[in-house]
């Protein structure tokens, strides 16, 4: 996977530039999820399973529409259902296709300690390279959207690849292909923004004053975007974060602390060495030994 013909702009735990001579000349890509058109059929979940050869364990029905209950290492996308009673007292069924948002500033990649286990392609896709994954789970710690999952079987992290293998050869992701209502669209990010604008205009004309595009700037924008009827309250959609960003704790841990800590430790080693050179060892002299012995003998008498 890491050898496919896509250019890499960021590579986890790597301090030198990744290979980047070719560009995404046609622009970065994006998936647009129009929640206002989604009917919750889960065709996208099935298409994801099919293309990626994923078969999650069959769970049990606990009386909710989500199936499976949560994202797992074998379920990379999931319809989340919310029954929302609006101020007029009407029921709104808010359905959101959850999965990796492919952040422009990915918290998972920032947190990952394994070189090349997470890469970001020039087209915007953030991809896990399981062959380099060590299973530490730092990607989970870094992700603002609670997306990556670690397999209990192979202890590798998995998530939506935005079908990077399909996109690399000019095809749209599997989920897009399966959507019967056109709620899922794929193209350049610019095209998707334009398409979203038209949709939002339409929604506003139908009384959804707060309709809008979810492309959160806190993570530099995302390559999976939502059209929401209630863009002013994204949390309504099964807890979609209103202002996602990489946690400042992760920022310190994976940012400034690394060079400072390493430099300080190296300098303290150097300081010790130069103390040795300048001041030298603190040695016990023959005089000290005699003083000790005479004190011992004096007291023994």
């Amino acid at each position, binding site marked *: 996977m890491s050898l496919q013909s896509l250019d890499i702009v960021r590579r986890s735990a790597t301090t030198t530039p990744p290979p980047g001579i070719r560009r995404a000349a046609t622009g970065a890509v994006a998936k647009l999820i129009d929640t206002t058109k989604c009917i919750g059929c889960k065709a996208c979940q099935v298409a994801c399973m099919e293309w990626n050869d994923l078969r999650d364990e069959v769970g049990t029905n606990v009386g909710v529409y989500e199936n499976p209950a949560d994202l797992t290492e074998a379920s990379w996308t999931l319809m989340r259902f919310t029954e929302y009673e609006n101020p007029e007292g009407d029921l709104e069924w808010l359905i959101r296709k959850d999965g990796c948002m492919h952040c422009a500033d990915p918290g998972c990649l920032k947190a990952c300690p394994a070189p090349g286990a997470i890469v970001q392609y020039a087209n915007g896709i953030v991809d896990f390279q399981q062959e380099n994954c*060590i299973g*530490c789970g730092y990607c989970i710690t870094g992700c603002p959207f609670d997306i990556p999952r670690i397999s209990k079987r192979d202890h590798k992290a998995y998530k939506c690849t935005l079908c990077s293998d399909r996109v690399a050869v000019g095809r749209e992701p599997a989920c897009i292909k399966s959507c019967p209502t056109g709620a899922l669209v794929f193209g350049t990010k610019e095209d998707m923004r334009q398409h979203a604008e038209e949709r939002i205009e339409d929604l506003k004309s139908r009384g959804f004053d707060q309709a809008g595009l979810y492309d959160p700037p806190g993570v530099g924008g995302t390559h999976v975007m939502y059209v929401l009827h209630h863009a002013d309250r994204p949390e309504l959609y099964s807890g979609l974060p209103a202002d996602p960003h990489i946690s400042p704790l992760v920022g310190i841990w994976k940012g400034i602390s690394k060079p400072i800590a390493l430099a300080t430790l190296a300098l303290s080693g150097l300081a010790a060495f130069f*103390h040795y050179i300048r001041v030298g060892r603190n040695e016990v002299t023959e005089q000290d030994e005699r003083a000790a012995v005479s004190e011992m003998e004096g007291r023994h008498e």
Partner: protein
Amino acid sequence: MNEHPDTLIRYTANERTNHWIVALAFLLAALSGLALFHPALYWLSALFGGGPWTRILHPIIGLIMTIAFVFLAAVVWKDNRLEPRDREWLHRIKDVVNNREEQLPEVGRYNAGQKLLFFVFVVCMVGLLLSGLVIWRQYFSMYFPIGIVRFASLLHAVCAFLLIGAIILHIYAAIWVKGSLRAMTRGTVTPGWAWKHHRAWFRERTHAANPRARPD
């Protein structure tokens, strides 16, 4: 040895074994931890059999270190309580680093620097253990909210940084003050060493009704 047959026992064989279990575990934990801390040190993971093995072994080594440290700390705890005379010693830190030991107040089994270092060890070990359990993804992380996991990740790094720094000081001090290493390898120090560096302890040992110093 031959010149000064009257050696003083500073650490028993059990204490030395305990110390070196902690030390070896620390070395391995620090190397594997540094491999995961900074990309420039990721190559250290090769010492442990690669990235996944480093991830598997690091917490186990850490647990061994902290458990062994509990026994070590229990033994030396009472000699590391801070006393009024430690303040004076710390005020004269310039004399300490310049080997002007005759200017310093009498020191018991441990000097004020050793005592402070000991408490840094204790605090770091507790911090590392607690935060380490939280970020141990395979067994425990799923039981904690993400905010706690993030805080623990940072805390783990901070405690490890402090501990490694403290150990650099600890190791250098053992090289710097000649004769100290022998106390932890062979268990004994010469009377002159004890008289010079830990006079109060020297007197306590040699004046005791049943001194541990061997008479000729």
